[in-house]
């Protein structure tokens, strides 16, 4: 019925005694997510709405068998928290924190990709598998159980498109916000291939935006490997031209990074692209009808 988070998720929340951490841990639990632990150094023995707090991730995992971590600690401490999560052995780490330095993330990404743990984010809204579990900050009322897998770089745009889908009676298997930072743990390709392997996902909606070339890479990957139909939305057609310091960036990108360029790359590989949220929901409806 879903990818990444579901009824088997046992969640530990890093930074659970902070304002945002406590609020969203509690909300996630209220949605039905199995929130088994929180971590705040020095606060072992306390609890947050019945969720026990531990000093370290290792303790939390040892004591509760948590398999998923959500990182809510401030950016200056988030790099440390991410390494701690990796070493604790959890399978999945979802990092909500925004503002982690790119150099730190390069190191974490390289380290993580040598093993088989999964990182979603940072700077992401989390993951929801409607009716099963919600890990993150998404407004749960927008999402309904269904058979569309939604993956997006943008938080609020995810809600917008989910709302448009809901207006047409379409629900989701899972919704994954991969985050908008230059270095995120999981790419479109990673999530699209998980959806493709999920028997309960009939259609994939991929929501991109200007910058980088992840959408272009995903287009190639989809054409070569993915059998589940994909529709896409790209934001930023009106993005203004601007200056650029130095030429190194322009040399390496290869692709233009523009919305138009991404749209063309996707369409060239047979992926239909909507140019506004309402349209992409309609494309999804048509694609589902054609199954």
């Amino acid at each position, binding site marked *: 019925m879903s990818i990444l988070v579901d009824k088997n998720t046992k969640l530990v929340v890093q930074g659970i005694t902070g304002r*945002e951490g406590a609020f969203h841990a509690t909300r996630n639990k209220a949605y039905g997510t199995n929130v088994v632990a929180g971590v705040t150094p020095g606060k072992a023995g306390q609890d947050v709405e019945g969720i026990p707090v531990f000093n370290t991730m290792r303790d939390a995992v040892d004591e509760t068998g948590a398999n998923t971590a959500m990182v809510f600690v401030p950016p200056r401490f988030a790099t440390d928290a991410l390494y701690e999560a990796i070493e604790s052995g959890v399978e999945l780490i979802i990092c909500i924190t925004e503002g982690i330095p790119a150099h730190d993330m390069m190191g974490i990404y390289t380290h993580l990709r040598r093993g088989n743990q999964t990182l979603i984010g940072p700077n992401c*809204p989390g993951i929801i598998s409607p009716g099963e579990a919600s890990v993150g900050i*998404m407004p749960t009322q927008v999402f309904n159980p269904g058979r569309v897998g939604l993956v997006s770089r943008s938080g609020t745009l995810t809600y917008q498109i989910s709302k448009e889908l809901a207006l047409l009676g379409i629900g989701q298997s899972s919704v994954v916000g991969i985050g908008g930072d230059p270095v995120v743990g999981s790419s479109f390709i990673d999530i699209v291939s998980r959806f493709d392997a999920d028997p309960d996902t009939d259609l994939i909606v991929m929501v991109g935006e200007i910058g980088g070339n992840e959408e272009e890479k995903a287009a190639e990957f989809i054409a070569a490997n993915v059998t589940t139909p994909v529709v896409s939305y790209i934001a930023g057609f009106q993005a203004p031209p*601007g200056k650029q310091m130095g030429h190194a960036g322009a040399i390496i990108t290869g692709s233009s990074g*523009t919305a138009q360029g991404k749209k063309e790359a996707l369409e060239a590989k047979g992926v239909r692209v909507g140019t*506004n949220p309402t349209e992409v929901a309609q494309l999804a409806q048509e694609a589902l009808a054609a199954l």
Partner: protein
Amino acid sequence: MASRSSGVYRLVNITQGRRLDLFEYQGKQLFARHGIPVPSGEIVDTPEAARAAAERIGGTVVVKAQVQVGGRGKAGGIQLAKTPDEAEAHARNILGMDIKDHIVHSVWIEAASEIVKEYYASVTFDRSEKKPLVMLSAEGGMDIEEVARTNPEALATLHVDPLTGFQAHHARWLVFHAGIDEGARSGVVSILQQLYAAFTDLDSMLMEINPLIWTASGDVVALDAKVTIDNNALYRHPDLLALQTSVTDDPQERMAQEKGVTYVKLDGDVGILGNGAGLVMSTLDVVALAGGRPANFLDAGGGSKADEVVAALEVLLSDPKVKVLLINIFGGITRCDEVANGLLTALDKLNATLPIVVRLDGTNEDEGRRIISEKAPANVVVEPTMLSAAQRAVELAKGV
């Protein structure tokens, strides 16, 4: 629509990782601190000071406009001066010059170098590979993008494992494969290693030297410096924080910077406020599809509170080109009732009379809509969807 490859740079950086661009002279000062040879020089902001600097430096100097944009050479922003008189005259011409919408506020006076050969060297964050990328070419000078296109063999490139770092053998491989002249090799190897160390030590996203020169005396020297720093890492570089000065001459962008609002000016008349970069970009697109022209990009952020809404509206309303406001909120962390209250506060404070179209969805949406329908003045209208809100705003902009 952006057509150049650099077209989306500005908004991408604003939405997906803000960066601090340094002036050439700041970059060179950092280079010097990291052991990268640079010509000696001084930064000045008056023609008289330029003369004095040229006297102190002695001999022929170069007067270089300090602007955070490329192409200053072609625009006349770099001049050779054989005497202090000439330096003063050039500084007088260059100071105040407008180079691609950037006003020159200071010039860098440096000792002229005797160039035997011009190379190119850079370390960049490669977003696609999520690794640093080091590039080196024996074909340096004005247009390295052209070299990359027409003679890619002349550009040696190498990705670096950020955990094991950039090592001497990497530098050697680049030097041999870029075809650096034998006499300059060890100098370039050493500079590449220092450049990479500076790149990581300073949380840089780009360090570019173009040209990197081989001089008549056999030294290898950085004749230019383009340095950008990851804003997310500035907290651990307090000295660089001080370099973060406003470089825009646009009044709204300046006001936005002061208030900490993420804002980019566009040339339309529909003022836009939304939450979340993706949703705001989408809003611009929907306005354009409805036949309108957005006046700006403004992201009030993920957890917009009343104060932030007030600050954002102040920026938008200060722009005389804006004929209508479109407020598009999808609350996740953001709560619609707080946005509605912020809007009322702002309208009260700013006495705005232009038409305002509001679309509120998500957390506490009913409460937010109720607040507006009960308390807002008549120029505020609520629309149920993003699309209808955009259409209404465009109609109003055309009708006024």
